């Protein structure tokens, strides 16, 4: 737990250094594509001062100066499967973005969708030292949360305080300076498997980049695709990626739950390839150009040439009707959505006051999804695209780039996490000189 705290703090320091230098790369390592955005920050002068969140969630603070996308290689279910391949794919994306930007970038912020994310709700309570709440009290309250036993080989990815309660008043966003006796906090903890994270770190490190931040792509997609009201009132963002489908639930502008289904667009492609006996790239092309989930009468008459280079004329001239294609795609998409539904129900989605669902990610672009999804997920479903940021080309503003754009916003305007607060003195190892220093500082 301690080394994670240290490494996350190191990443924070790195991110601060990157923002000072003004250039930072955003890497979305997905199953079907790797996207790299290069952001230029105009320095702290250009940022609007003032407390809290600036206007427009901070996306005016930076500008996208380089974008590159490449087909992902060696990634399965959002986790690195073949590291040299992935390293090459990351190099391709970074080189393309650097070439477009014309600057060298040394710091990267990355997100990934796999590694079995699991959410925990934590609560902690402490007595306030003085009458008014200070940052030390908040840190103590956060430290007082009981850590659940999340098992061997797991690591904390996000630990965000989502709610504070002072005596009998709850729902405080920022309790600093308020007067009370007992400070209670709720914290949302997201843990992931250790090994895939380590692999991603290694792969990025081998591309000569320093990692300046790490986020779950479900969270990043939610930041980008949910509008402010939805984040405030409560909504779920379903990021339908290539190898896994992430879902994140937002409420009062905090992520309160996240999970992932290890199914995605790649499985649809795989089904088509198996069902129609075509190579994967042909299946991918057919899915992208002709795919759908809602068959109508006209689809029976629309024939799709499968093509092929096998040399067998009969095989290469085969066609299928679009209805048949939809017949292959639809069950898989339904399966994904049902799986998501199960995860949401398990998280207590029914008890949330607002049940808005936003579908985003590359697989959400399949036609007819806006008709199919409400049948499974409830009536309040919409398709979401990422928020617009400066300098982002049109080609990179589709739903497939939600996570990358969300990560940019995360870089510009990060959520407070547990490790942003100082460790309270009690948490330092006994007989540590720093513990003595802290104790002196707190008592005089």
């Amino acid at each position, binding site marked *: 737990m301690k080394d994670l705290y240290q490494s996350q703090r190191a990443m924070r320091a790195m991110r601060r250094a990157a923002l000072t230098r003004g250039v930072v790369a955003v890497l979305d390592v997905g199953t079907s594509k790797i996207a790299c955005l290069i952001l230029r920050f105009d320095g702290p002068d250009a940022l609007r001062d003032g407390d809290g969140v600036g206007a427009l969630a901070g996306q005016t603070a930076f500008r996208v100066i380089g974008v590159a996308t*490449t087909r992902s290689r060696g990634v399965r279910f959002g986790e690195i499967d073949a590291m040299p391949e992935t390293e090459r794919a990351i*190099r*391709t994306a970074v*080189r393309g973005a*650097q*070439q477009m930007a014309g600057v060298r970038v040394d710091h990267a912020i990355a997100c990934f969708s796999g590694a079995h994310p699991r959410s925990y709700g934590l609560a902690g309570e402490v007595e306030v030292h003085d009458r008014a709440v200070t940052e030390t009290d908040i840190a103590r309250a956060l430290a007082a949360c009981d850590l659940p036993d999340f098992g061997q080989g797991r690591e904390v990815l996000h630990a965000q305080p989502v709610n504070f309660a002072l005596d009998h008043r709850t729902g405080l966003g920022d309790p600093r300076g308020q007067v009370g006796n007992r400070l209670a906090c709720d914290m949302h903890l997201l843990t992931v498997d250790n090994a895939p994270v380590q692999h991603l770190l290694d792969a990025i490190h081998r591309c*000569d980049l320093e990692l300046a931040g790490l986020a779950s792509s479900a969270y990043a997609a939610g930041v980008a695709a949910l509008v402010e009201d939805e984040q405030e009132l409560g909504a779920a963002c379903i990021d339908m990626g290539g190898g896994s489908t992430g879902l994140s639930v937002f409420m009062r502008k905090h992520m309160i739950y996240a999970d992932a289904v290890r199914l995605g667009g790649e499985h649809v492609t795989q089904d088509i390839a198996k069902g129609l006996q075509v190579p994967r790239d042909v299946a991918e092309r057919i899915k992208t150009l002709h795919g759908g989930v809602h068959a109508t009468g006209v689809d029976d008459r629309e024939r799709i040439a499968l093509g092929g280079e096998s040399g067998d004329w009969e095989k290469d001239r085969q066609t299928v009707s679009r209805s048949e294609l939809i017949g292959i795609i639809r069950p898989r998409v339904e399966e994904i959505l049902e799986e998501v539904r199960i995860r949401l129900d398990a998280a207590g989605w029914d008890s949330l006051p607002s049940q808005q669902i936003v579908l985003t990610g590359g697989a959400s672009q399949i036609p007819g999804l806006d008709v199919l999804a409400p049948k499974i997920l409830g009536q309040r479903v919409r398709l979401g695209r990422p928020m617009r940021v400066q300098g982002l080309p049109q080609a990179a503003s589709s739903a497939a780039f939600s996570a990358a754009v969300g990560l940019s916003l995360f870089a510009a305007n990060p959520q407070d996490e547990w490790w942003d607060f100082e460790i309270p003195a009690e948490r330092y190892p006994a007989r540590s000189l720093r513990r003595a220093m802290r104790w002196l500082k707190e008592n005089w």
Partner: protein
Amino acid sequence: MRPLRHLWRGRAGDPAPSRMAYRMQRFWLTPVYRAAVRVGLPVFAVVLGVGLWFHDADNRQRLADLAAHLRDEVAGRPEFAVRLMAIDGASPVVAEAIREVAPVRLPASSFEIDLDAVRAAVAELDAVAAVDVRIRAGGILQVDVAERVPAVVWRGPGGIDLLDNGGRRVAALATRAARPDLPLIAGEGADAAVPEALALVAAAGPVADRLRGLVRVGERRWDVVLADAARGDQTILLPERGAVTALELVLALDAAQDLFARDLVSIDVRNIHRPTLRLRGQAVEELARIRSLEWGTPLPGGVGQ
């Protein structure tokens, strides 16, 4: 595991940059290295090449020879030749002297003529007050001279010289008779007080026909010497300060009492409040005789003042 051979086989179709290419691109995008490679490297190469070439003494000699040859070739072109020296504002004698002293041998290239040296050499001549030397179009070395105007003749320790009104030597003079129109001054240090001498000569206008000249005494004051064919020269001893005033006083005395017609050796006005006359021997005796007639007794001594 898949065989790794496909990594090598598929190299050409792989869009991914090799690790080396990726690093080179990042290296190239770093501003410092970029500047070093684009500016520093060529500059270094050129400096190194030139330095190595110059390191050889033969090469240096060859380059110097080539430069000298080129220079000679350009300097030798007829457009740059100077064939004549034109001297304006100088008398024939002075012009001849200028031609002699000017350190040029015509015809010469205009690159080889050192105008400053010519100017300095000509300005050294005593007869030249100011000189302007330039090369005129058409290959002419133009020398504009302003001559010094002689104002007095000085019989000094080194012979007879002509001086201008500032006391600068203009030329030597063989005899005083060569320039009878100019006043004569004599004595050591006379050249340093020429303006005063000229003022005295001007003041002595009424006796100009008898004025032999001025004598500087002890490098501090003037004597005016007047010629008198019958009795010998008369001298007016003037004070250090206010010499002109004193001379005018003497001239006024002369106008009133016909002073110079008397048998005097000198008129001493060094103390202007007490002009003193010095009589000749005969005149002293004559004065004594007249006084004895008037007073009845001869005066003792024989000196009349």
